[in-house]
């Protein structure tokens, strides 16, 4: 069996992985290996042909593939060893070893490293996971599958389309299909508000005259060999089905945009502590999981709104991985939990030391207006005009602010003003 040694091993060559690998080399790691299961690097970026990538990270407005090329060229010029078509099967972390066993074009290979960064991204939820029962006709695709088909292979999923779920990916695909001449008859959303950014509702739906059915749920896909219609009904504020409101909408294609789930099965099997709210691993402020010297960044850690956040998280993980390798052991930090207060659904990192500056990423449970984002233990109060679940909260707490911390924990909460 082939063995490959490295200082830093990065799994996944999407935004977070490419950024992490480059940063690790930049900071002096001698050997950085970047693994990806696909034949080409870039993760999901090459199929995101719309602009809006890199506004913060590169100060430019690029399309997904352009952003991927920039990051990839940097790994090339920095001497990162990129290994494609390699599927990681196991993470073995015991007695100080960090080994990833993977299937590569050269057979089963053991990648042994001093630190491992999981930048494996997320997968889409499919129609079965959201409870749509029925036959399995042709013509049902997840939004990402439709995007791969259209934007990498030039195919067309169908002509009369209904999109289930109003998250950003679903909105982007509704527009993409309309641009290619399909009749996008509706975007169906269970909640009373869209799951995507307001600007996407405007530029993808309103601009194209695509109706948005809020507080509606798709219950059945009809058709035996090919989709012929979808059954939709109204739901109340607590998502209860309203009897007698069911109607059929004829269509030949259903696009399912039901959310993303981080791909961290290897970490879970290796015994890392999980956070059910993020459906990923719990991390400390170094983005280190409960498995020492194994880190997580990008969509594998938390589903990010912007690719820029994924890239920044990758760099943070790389910086801390290098520090840990150099110092062998950190002076033992006492990790303090970050407790979720009022209206906070998820927050990353889940543990802090109070001795370093920390950037937080989180989401609220319910939309609210005119609120404060508060960390009462250190007197932090940030005004927010509007908060809603599809719009990620990001904020940084400096060392100086942490200086006031006396408790063994911090609480992050959203409180109404006045």
């Amino acid at each position, binding site marked *: 069996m082939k063995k490959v040694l490295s200082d830093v091993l990065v799994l996944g060559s999407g935004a977070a992985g490419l950024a992490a690998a480059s940063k690790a080399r930049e900071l002096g790691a001698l050997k950085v290996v970047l693994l990806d299961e696909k034949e080409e690097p870039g993760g999901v970026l*090459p199929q995101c042909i719309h602009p809006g990538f890199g506004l913060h990270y590169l100060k430019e407005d690029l399309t997904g593939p*352009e952003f991927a090329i920039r990051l990839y060229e940097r790994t090339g010029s920095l001497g990162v060893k990129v290994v494609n078509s390699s599927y990681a099967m196991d993470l073995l972390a015991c007695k100080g070893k960090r080994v990833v066993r993977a299937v590569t074009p050269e057979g089963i290979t053991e990648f042994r490293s001093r630190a491992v960064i999981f930048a494996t991204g997320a997968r889409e939820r499919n129609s079965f996971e959201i409870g749509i029962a029925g036959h399995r006709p042709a013509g049902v695709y997840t939004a990402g599958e439709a995007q791969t088909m259209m934007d990498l292979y030039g195919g067309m999923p169908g002509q009369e389309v209904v999109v289930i779920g109003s998250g950003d990916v679903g909105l982007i695909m509704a527009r993409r299909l309309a641009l290619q001449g399909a009749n996008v008859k509706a975007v169906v959303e269970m909640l009373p508000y869209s799951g995507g950014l*307001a*600007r996407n509702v405007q530029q993808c739906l309103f601009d194209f005259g695509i109706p948005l059915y809020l507080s509606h749920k798709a219950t059945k896909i009809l058709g035996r060999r090919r989709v012929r219609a979808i059954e939709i009904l109204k739901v109340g504020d607590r998502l209860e089905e309203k009897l007698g409101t069911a109607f059929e909408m004829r269509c030949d294609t259903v696009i399912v945009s039901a959310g993303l789930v981080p791909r961290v099965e290897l970490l879970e099997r290796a015994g890392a502590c999980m956070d059910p709210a993020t459906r990923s691993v719990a991390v400390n402020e170094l983005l280190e999981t409960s498995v020492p010297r194994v880190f997580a960044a990008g969509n594998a850690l938390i589903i990010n709104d*912007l690719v820029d956040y994924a890239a920044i998280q990758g760099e943070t993980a790389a910086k801390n991985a290098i520090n840990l390798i150099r110092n062998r052991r950190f002076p033992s930090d006492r990790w303090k939990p970050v407790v979720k207060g009022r209206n906070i659904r998820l927050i990353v990192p889940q543990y802090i030391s109070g001795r370093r500056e920390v950037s937080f990423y989180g989401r609220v449970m319910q939309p609210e207006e005119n609120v404060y984002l508060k960390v009462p233990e250190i007197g932090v109060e940030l005004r927010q005009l509007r908060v809603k679940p599809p719009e990620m909260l990001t904020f940084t707490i400096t060392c100086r602010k942490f200086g006031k911390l006396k408790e063994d924990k911090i609480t992050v909460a959203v409180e109404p003003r006045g």
Partner: protein
Amino acid sequence: MICIVCPLGCELEVETGREPKQIVRIKGSRCFKGKEYAAREVTDPRRVLMAVAKVRDGHLPVVSVKTDRPIPKQMLREAVKAISKIEIDAPVKAGDIVIENLLGTGARVVATNNVGKAISILTVK
């Protein structure tokens, strides 16, 4: 209208005067780009178009493209049809100009990804 320039998505309100397309006031933007966007949206709405163009002999059958500047919103569907008619030869590099002047708008259509030449695995030496 909702501003689409950045992810904040400010809700904008544009007051127009008596003359058509005369802008009196723009409310709700949190930056100057939002004001610019609102002004243009009311008088001459434009969008950057992204699509895919067919590639001959490439390792992928299409390459993603975009216009290098926004084009009039009402021309988007016609523009997509124009792009679907052309075919370019591999290799294609990001930045290559695929159409010099799209439908007379002056906008160029450029490739946004690299597509290499397809390597046949059945070649006999």
